[in-house]
């Protein structure tokens, strides 16, 4: 995975977010989530974490306490699309392992890895409330359930189209 190059224009956009939330440290979680949303590799680079800490007048350790606590915030870069496979109780009963095998085979990576071209990261997640269509995965914010092998391949190819297009 490539790391994001933090330039002035990114920091300006982050400043806009911080100002929209009144430079108030109580809004840290929202500020971090929106800032991460600007970064294609879905993480908060250290420079950004430091910058936010300074602008909110709080120690960087507090910023990292929040980043590392929440699953939706990352301190390390990920692929362009993050595929999260649920392995909680319902998906366990509905054999999430069959989806895992297809995904690993199609993407040529193992769980926890990122494809060489940086398009996809494959990881496990806890239940995301799609148990009625289990086994399920989500790609970025979108949930896919009731899956067949053909459907999974189609979905991946669609994303490949997007990421190369």
């Amino acid at each position, binding site marked *: 995975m490539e790391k994001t190059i933090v330039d002035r224009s990114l920091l300006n956009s982050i400043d806009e977010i911080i100002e929209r939330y009144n430079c*108030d*440290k*109580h*809004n*840290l*979680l*929202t500020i*971090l*989530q929106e800032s991460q949303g600007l970064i294609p590799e879905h993480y908060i680079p250290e420079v950004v974490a430091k910058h936010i800490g300074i602008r909110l007048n709080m120690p960087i350790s*507090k910023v990292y*306490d*929040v980043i590392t*606590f*929440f*699953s*939706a*915030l990352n301190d390390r870069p990920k692929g362009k699309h993050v595929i999260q496979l649920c*392995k*909680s*109780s*319902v998906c*366990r*009963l*509905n054999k999430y392992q069959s989806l895992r095998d297809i995904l690993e085979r199609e993407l040529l990576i193992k769980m926890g890895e990122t494809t060489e071209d940086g398009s996809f990261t494959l990881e496990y997640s*806890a*239940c*995301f*409330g*799609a*148990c*009625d*269509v*289990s086994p399920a995965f*989500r790609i970025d*914010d*979108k*949930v896919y359930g009731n899956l067949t092998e053909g459907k999974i391949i189609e979905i991946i190819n669609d994303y490949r189209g997007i990421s190369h297009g």
Partner: protein
Amino acid sequence: MDRTVSIISKNFKKYNIESIDEYLSLGGFKALEKAFDLGPKGIINELNASGLRGRGGAAYPTGKKWEQASRVPGHRKVIICNADEGEPATFKDRYLLQYDPYKVIEGMIIAAITFNANEGYIYIREEYKYLHDKFRRAIQLSKEKGFLGENILNNGFNFDITVFSGAGAYVCGESTALIESMEGKSGRPRLKLNRTSEKGLYQLPTLANNVETLAAVTSILYTGGEEYGKYGTPSSRGTKLISLCGNVNRPGAYEVPFGVTLREIVYDIGGGIKEGKALKFLQLGGASGAIVPPSLLDLKYCYEELGNKGIDIGSGAVLVADETNRVVDFLKSVQDFFLHESCGKCTPCREGNRQITKILNRFVTGEGSVEDLKTIERFSNVMKYASFCGLGKTAPTALLSAIEHFPIEFYQQIHRVRKTS
């Protein structure tokens, strides 16, 4: 015979949520008009008459909770709708957000009238991000029609709602952890020196309720508390949204009157087990709930009958597992969840989950021992009684109930040393 009912779920898939007019044509916001006529005391009377209990898991009577809260003084007060829904096997709140968001909004406004609050937040889990903007749109449309904002329906009452996104932490469903995370901190539960209704978000009086509770409030004011309370059993009145899932033919969120049997839920509503297999066990209330063996299938789904067997309704999840599943494998998925979600603030839960995971892994691979079995029971009981919050207290529920009902499954996984002489 399928015993589902449509009161809270009446509008599911009946209208397009992009159109508030369609909601209005289904009787939408009539409950709100009634709420203004009734006033806080009248609303609380209706809730008491209905027998409604909180649907977030703790099942505290809502009328009583609101009555106590309404006595708290303060100029600035807050309503929170808890849409964190992180309990594995639970998705019924998602159906409400997805198919009837205005009913939830209406319930929040009714709560605000009762509590005399002018600020509202709905804390929706990050995993439901695809619903955040849809919900924001429903708020916007409600505002344009004068149901939110200033001087609501010309009653001189102001109330507004903001969507707050969770960030992927199950423990944040616990009210004080939820509030911590809304204040820009990591979501670890707070020591409760005061009730949340006295000192909650930013130390302001805060009334927090589950999505389904608030939707039920709207339905109760619409149909009348007495009328709603006619459903169910004498001590578990009304109806409940259940999340039916697992190895079952028709998974989904369904509304049932309290008092249907577990058998009716699995076989009539759920259409039985997939591929005609036999039932191995149920888990009720999500990952934090008890394992229920087939011998208890004729129990009525209600607080007292399940409670007598040490089973909680919890979030209303009904997870079905077929005969091909080994209990210890299933428990491992439950245990992995709690190990991941423990916030680490207190020792019983942090260390207990870690040690139990290690030992349980030995049972999965057939290397358990009799000592191990005693140890996990002992650790589980320590967690149950000494953990700081509900997460650690309920994390070993599945394990303890499984040891009670399926001891054989553990003994089969005990490593046998072959005698050589």
